[in-house]
């Protein structure tokens, strides 16, 4: 089990499915490097890492959460890897590409309101006009404006009402 302090740091860097993939790949790279050069420690092998992941490691060090010995460092990486695998994927389709700060708000909303920690898989499709299409563990909910408009147009008398308003 990952420590709560470390989990908080991970969660602040890990918002989307892309982040999750980058984290997982970088952890693998580090493990492989350390295994190949058996004497090396994680600290000395950071050159080939993604900047975001490097920043995350630096943050851990800054907060004094990163162990000093290579063995302990490797076991921490394994714990983080297991944590990544335990995260639940929520797929969101939005009408626009969200900025990072908006994603932070979204993730914290899900984490506060749901029973499980999540990462977001974000898709943007302008056709939905506004709102969101949400997919979670195979459940599909369309909360988009396009869907609402579509439903309205099938309601009896809608078209006639629209035409009357136009007159």
């Amino acid at each position, binding site marked *: 089990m990952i420590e709560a302090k470390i989990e908080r740091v991970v969660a602040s860097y890990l918002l989307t499915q892309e982040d999750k993939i980058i984290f997982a790949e970088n952890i693998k790279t580090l493990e492989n490097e350390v295994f190949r050069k058996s004497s090396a420690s994680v600290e000395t092998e950071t050159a080939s890492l993604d900047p975001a992941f490097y920043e995350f490691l630096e943050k851990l060090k800054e907060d004094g959460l990163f162990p000093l010995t290579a063995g302990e460092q490797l076991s921490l990486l394994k714990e983080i890897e297991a944590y990544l695998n335990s995260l639940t994927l929520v797929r969101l389709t939005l009408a626009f590409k969200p900025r990072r700060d908006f994603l932070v708000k979204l993730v914290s909303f899900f984490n506060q309101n749901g029973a499980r920690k999540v990462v977001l898989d974000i898709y943007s499709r302008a056709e939905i006009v506004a709102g969101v299409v949400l*997919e979670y*563990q*195979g*459940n*599909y*909910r*369309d909360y988009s404006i396009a*869907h609402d408009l579509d439903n309205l147009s099938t309601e009896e008398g809608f078209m006639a009402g629209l035409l009357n308003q136009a007159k």
Partner: protein
Amino acid sequence: MIKTYDEYLNSVGEIGYIDSIVHSIAYVTGLPGARTREVVVAQGGQIGIVQALLPGYVEVLMLSTAGLKNETPIARTGESFKIAVSKEILGRVVNPFGAPIDGAGPIGGEKEFRSIDEPAPALHTRARIDQPLETGVQVVDLLVPLGYGQRELVIGDRKTGKSIFLLQTVVAQASKGVVCIYVSIGKRQSDIKSVEEYLKSWSGAFSNCTIVAASSSDPASMIYLAPFAGFSIAEYFRDRGKNVLIIFDDLTNHAKFYRELSLLSKRTPGRSSYPGDIFNLHASMLERAGQIKTERGKVSITALPVAESLEGDITGYIQTNLMSITDGHIFFDPEKFREGARPAINHALSVSRVGNQTKSPLEKELAQRIREALARYEKDKEIARFGVDLPESTKAEIDTGEKIELVLNQDTETLVPATLSLMLMGLLLGDFWKGKRVEQVKVDLIKITQKYQQGKLASLHDSITQITKVDDLIKQMKVYSDKITQVLYE
């Protein structure tokens, strides 16, 4: 399918994504509420049927894989697989989805959507099989009789005349108004065409028939569905008070395609690599046949599944499975075929468990006499091989046996009604052809059949229907022998 992918997605509210595809099998993540046998639809409109629910995956049998790739979204429909059936499906060739493939345009009429997985009729609705089903093939009608609602396996090697016997049966029944469904499973397109042409060559027969065809070039999933779709069509007509005859040509092929699908979906292979549920699959399907009681009287679905054997070996896995599922079997013997018997049915190795109860006392007694005469003939033939001088009684038995075989031989273009069959046997046992050469008997048989069809033996027909004993039949035929001779050579 009535709705689109988007409509199903919004109404059911469940989505899945293809994780991998192996031939026709797609493994889908998501779809938390999926049920086995439920239809799912891909974003491109491709249809699939849920086969199994695995940990983390739903195994889907896709009926078309064109345009499918990883991450293709799939929606649940909440429905089982249904095909549209209307009365106008008769006289048409359709695929397992009920869509026409004969180039004669769309099928009209008021359509009803029927699930291909209807449950079999309950026990209390079933009725005893008590109506004889005439095949028009003498050896079957006399020695291995069938009844409406029976399930009789037709088993034999390739090219031993199974299909032509089935087609003769279809023609005999279709011309009596029985709805006939011919399900062709994994056969070549040319075979399907020849079935269609044969049925069309008999006037009026094809208008009571439907061919459900899944050819060898179709996907395995489509071939697998063909017999179920055939049954749905049969049940549609049964529920409208029609007797139905359904033919599955053939179920060994069906088992092979099901094996292919099962091996692809990594199910544990059992005997001969078939999956463990192959018996259940065929048994539960054939259970849908039978005679049932309705408010309008008894109606039936008679099923004639076909099993192909190899070199006359009827002890194969699927063959024995089907034998134990059905109410008997008709064995087409390759040895008999080589000897020139047409149809090459080995009556001694054929069984009809419920057909005999549909027969009149006269027919039962006659069948017994013929069986005994043929058994003596087989024994005498063995003795005659040694070239010893045979007593007169043995010679007479051989002569009778040869002539019985001659009468039981019939070509593919001739259907022999039950009364004519009784008449011929009555003449034979009444020594009508005693001392006549085989060639002469052959000519007489053709002529009698023709005269009967022309209605020139109508008076005999009426008198035969009242007879209850073989001795009375023989006496009657002796009385009429002069008249028959006269009719023959007029």
